[in-house]
């Protein structure tokens, strides 16, 4: 469904990605691992069109994404929950959701406000609050809910639970699990490796802008040596 081949990219004079290969099949949950600054977010920015690739190709559903502006990529059915969340601060919760609402990918069972509120009951309590009045956890829920409102076929979560209190974190994991059950393809980045490896089907491990290891998530879960080498402290 999504295939990256030899993607190179960077900011200004520095190269952050030096040849990233990645594959994600329909219905799969794939996690992108690695320490800070290894190129996970940059990879996602390239997929979303926030950063231009210098070379290489990114294909989604048979479409070469490199030629497409960001909004076309979204319309192909890629939902994005950015690391910084980027909630629209001056819009209410409901407006943050409505602003995105669209069914470009013509989903069978489109997401509606009701469905989203079912998923995140907490958001329903705060419908009229402005985006900048929400707590970090609520913002994260809203960011996920907003991405769902465009009825994506692939959901990309960058630092899905960073900086969140444990209870909220569990809530987010529960929702992601639920989305997985519904058959949504997911590409996810997070720091909570254990939880991630239980959730994900496969993993990609990044180091210095390249994928250094990939495979079944369950395998990595057992490979303490590999974990320590690339992820440990």
């Amino acid at each position, binding site marked *: 469904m999504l295939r990256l081949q030899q993607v190179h990219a960077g900011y200004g004079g520095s190269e952050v990605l030096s040849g990233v290969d990645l594959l994600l099949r329909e219905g799969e949950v794939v996690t992108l691992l690695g320490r800070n600054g290894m190129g996970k977010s940059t990879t996602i920015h390239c997929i979303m069109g926030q950063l231009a690739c210098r070379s290489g190709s990114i294909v989604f559903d048979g479409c070469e994404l490199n030629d497409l502006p960001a909004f076309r990529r979204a319309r192909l059915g890629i939902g994005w929950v950015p690391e910084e969340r980027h909630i*629209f601060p*001056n819009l209410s919760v409901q407006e943050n959701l409505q602003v995105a609402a669209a069914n470009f990918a013509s989903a069978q069972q489109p997401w509606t406000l009701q469905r989203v509120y079912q998923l995140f009951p907490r958001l329903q309590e705060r419908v009229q609050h402005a985006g900048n009045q929400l707590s970090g956890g609520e913002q994260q829920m809203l960011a996920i809910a907003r991405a769902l409102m465009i009825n994506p076929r692939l959901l990309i979560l960058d630092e899905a639970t960073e900086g969140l209190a444990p209870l909220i974190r569990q809530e987010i994991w529960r929702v992601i699990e639920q989305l997985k059950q519904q058959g949504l393809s997911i590409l996810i980045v997070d720091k909570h490796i254990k939880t991630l490896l239980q959730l994900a089907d496969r993993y990609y491990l990044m180091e210095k802008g390249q994928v250094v290891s990939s495979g079944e998530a369950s395998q990595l879960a057992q490979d303490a040596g590999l974990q320590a080498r690339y992820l440990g402290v």
Partner: protein
Amino acid sequence: MLLLIEQVLNGLQLGFMLFLLSAGLTLVFGVMNLINLAHGSFYMVGAYVAATMIQHGSGFALALLVALAAAALCGLLVEVLVLRHLYHRDHLDQVLATFGLILFFNESTRMIWGRQPLFMQLPEFLSASVEILPGVPYPLYRLVIIGVGLLVAVGLYLLISHSRVGMRIRAGASNRDMIAALGVNIRWLYSLVFALGALLAGFAGVMAAPLYAVESGMGESILILTFVVIVIGGIGSVKGALLGALLVGLVDTLGRAFLPQLLQGLFDSSSANSVAASLSSMGIYLLMVLVLAIRPRGLFPA
């Protein structure tokens, strides 16, 4: 007292006209972060087209429609041909380019319509006076401008606060990249906002045509006032533009009307007149300096 009511109405009329101009300008600035000095040109286009239509015997409604379309079209062309290349540029580049556009538009109108100002006749049904109070007649047309301004204000409020497009405009103003990542075609949205702003400016031009001389360069004198309005109101805020426009309209009109009398108590009449004249012309600028000295980002910073 009667004079006061009349002058307040005059002030409101000027205020609402300024609002029509400021709304578009402030939106364009707030959403696209673009300084457009050529905004007054759309006002001029609206006035010229309407005046010409009327001179050739067209009805007022038709003239209005064609003028609005012309202004919006000009706006669209300017956005697509020139300004689109400047969104990521320095404000200075935008100032230079739109200054160039002013020269172009002013000279174009001179080439088409000549140097003589045009005058636009009011249609009869608008040229009447109404008694606002027993024995106090007031030109209907000015009241119509106030009414139209109010309607546009309400319309814009509904559009921006309660429609999908409005949500996108507000969202785009705070985070352009995110709104694009949600599948919104930001280019198209920008063109739309820009054309809407141009249309409102053209509308103001049509409204102004019967009151003032229609001439090349008419856009610039009012443009400066418009900038004062949006800076006072807080750039990017339509609410601020409304408040700022009414403030500027009232301060300017009332200052001109009453300052000479007020100052006559202090000075002898000839110097009172001259001081009053300069003070009342400076009034709105004093207002702006005062507002910015206290709130450097205007009354309603977006």
